[in-house]
């Protein structure tokens, strides 16, 4: 027996799926190529030789272990992420603390800091490419000469290229870290500070025992987003060094790009992409656990 009420209730049960249908269709449209990609990583798909297409199981993955470039790309991916996150979160914390103090013009500085954050990363890279010209016309080398620094071969030398990418990435993303942490600082209530002051805590002790513990969920959040983005950095490297010189700035994403779009070895490129994905999943899992701990400790 169906009463109007039960019919309505049954309709309500299916309603969410109806509402989700358009998004789900798009989602399937995303997951299908992803599944196809996993399949391709188990084949020797080479765009120029479609006739040789064969299922090769885990050959692509096993081959990677014996490839020197892969080991270096993996090292660079992890090493760059560690350094970039340390530099950006460290400096970002300093900037956030600075802006949190009542500095004259902090609103203007905060607004200006959005500029590097919101322009396309590849445009950021091109801007710095112009400034980092290694000829004498490059403005950065010219300015550095005033403080006694010899002209730097920014993109031409191994070390210079790595540092260039780090500087450019930091310029674009330091505001992100600073703004997250500034938001965190502003969310801390005043009572803990007052309690600490009553206990006779100095500014350093307050920072150590009040600010940092209460800010820790925000710090972990900033680390998470920056780590995820640094592991996958592509635009800046592509537009400046393209992975060079001597593959010094080739990370997994650049390597997978080169394999699949310069040599059209889609199978191998896809296997490298899956390794990077695995790395991202592991790191995000670890950071999520850290976040849970930080969030629990502040409650």
């Amino acid at each position, binding site marked *: 027996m169906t009463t109007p009420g039960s019919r309505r209730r049954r309709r309500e049960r299916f309603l969410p799926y109806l*509402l989700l249908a358009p998004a789900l269709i798009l989602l399937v449209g*995303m997951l299908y190529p992803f599944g196809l990609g996993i399949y391709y990583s188990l084949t020797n798909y080479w765009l120029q030789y479609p006739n040789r297409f064969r299922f090769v199981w885990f050959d692509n993955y096993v081959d990677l272990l014996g490839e020197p470039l892969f080991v270096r790309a993996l090292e660079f991916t992890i090493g760059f992420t560690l350094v970039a996150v340390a530099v950006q979160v460290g400096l970002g914390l300093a900037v956030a603390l600075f802006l949190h103090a009542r500095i004259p013009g902090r609103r203007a500085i905060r607004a200006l800091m959005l500029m590097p954050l919101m*322009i396309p990363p590849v445009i950021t890279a091109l801007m*710095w490419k112009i*400034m980092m*010209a290694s000829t004498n016309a490059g403005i950065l080398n010219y300015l550095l000469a005033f403080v006694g620094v010899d002209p730097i071969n920014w993109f031409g030398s191994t070390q210079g290229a790595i540092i260039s990418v780090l500087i450019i990435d930091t310029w674009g993303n330091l505001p992100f870290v600073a703004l997250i942490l500034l938001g965190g600082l502003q969310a801390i209530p005043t009572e803990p500070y007052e309690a600490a002051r009553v206990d006779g805590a100095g500014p350093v002790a307050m920072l150590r025992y009040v600010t940092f513990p209460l800010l820790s969920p925000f710090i972990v959040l900033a680390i998470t987003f920056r780590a995820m983005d640094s592991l996958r950095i592509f635009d800046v490297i592509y537009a400046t060094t393209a992975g060079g010189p001597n593959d010094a700035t080739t990370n997994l994403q650049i390597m997978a790009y080169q394999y699949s*779009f310069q040599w059209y070895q889609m199978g191998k490129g896809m296997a490298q992409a899956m390794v990077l994905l695995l790395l991202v999943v592991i790191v995000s899992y670890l950071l999520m656990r850290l976040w849970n701990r930080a969030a629990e400790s502040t409650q």
Partner: protein
Amino acid sequence: MTSRAVSYQRLTRRVVIALASVVLLVWTVFPFVWILLTSLKSPGDIISVPPTFVFTPTVDNYTALVVGEQRGQYASTRPDFPRFFLNSMIISVGAVALSVAAGIPAAYALARFTFPGKNALAFVLLSFRFVPFIAFVIPLYILYQRFGLYNTHAGLILAYQLITLPFTVWMLRSFFMEIPIEIQEAAKIDGCSWLGVLGRIILPLSAPGISVTVILGFMFCWNAFNYPLMLAGRQTFPVTVGAIQFISYEQVLWGQMAAATIVAALPQLLLSLMVQKYIVRGLTMGAVK
């Protein structure tokens, strides 16, 4: 402590703060100033040693951008920047429109209904924020070549859903959840259907949030570089991929590249002023308010 020692301490503090402010300002703003200057220089001034701050400005670089392919020695290989700009507009507007159309009902369902698989679905959507693009672009390239979507606006709009759909759903959900549930219940008692609740309560009340989502989504599309680099061709390049076309094998057109970066960044700078307060929220998919 004497009063003089106190005032001396205060003075050093002020000097340190002023210095730090200047360093922060120069670090943030100088690249923009320098690129703006470069874009107004003639080729001779650009390669002058030492670099010049004083020169006769020229708009030649911008003219060259606007005139596009119709003029110049390398007419056939010259980047067609007006078209790139138009492409960016078409793809970004299209991608956001599709995401918002599919995202509003989805976000409503995730915000206001309980059903099995709800959290898993939200998590799957969120995880797209962290997936390496290359894992998607390789199979997409192969599929697009096969089905004629390569180098088309429609193909790019679909690929951009990887950027905008998860973002749109998460942002809208966080805005929808801010609306007190009591209002919705009151409307239901008054006989409103779910469609009425969505149309008469949720959408009007979250209109500012929807605008923020639209603007930020548009900005993320405008910034996109990876997907169009592989899936677009000369006819569909957006400004981001277009700007690197000024680097060719024979030379780098520094002045025009500078002008192109300014033009490509300008919409972002204007839009970011409008959504200042929400940028961090947008970049963290609603995690930080």
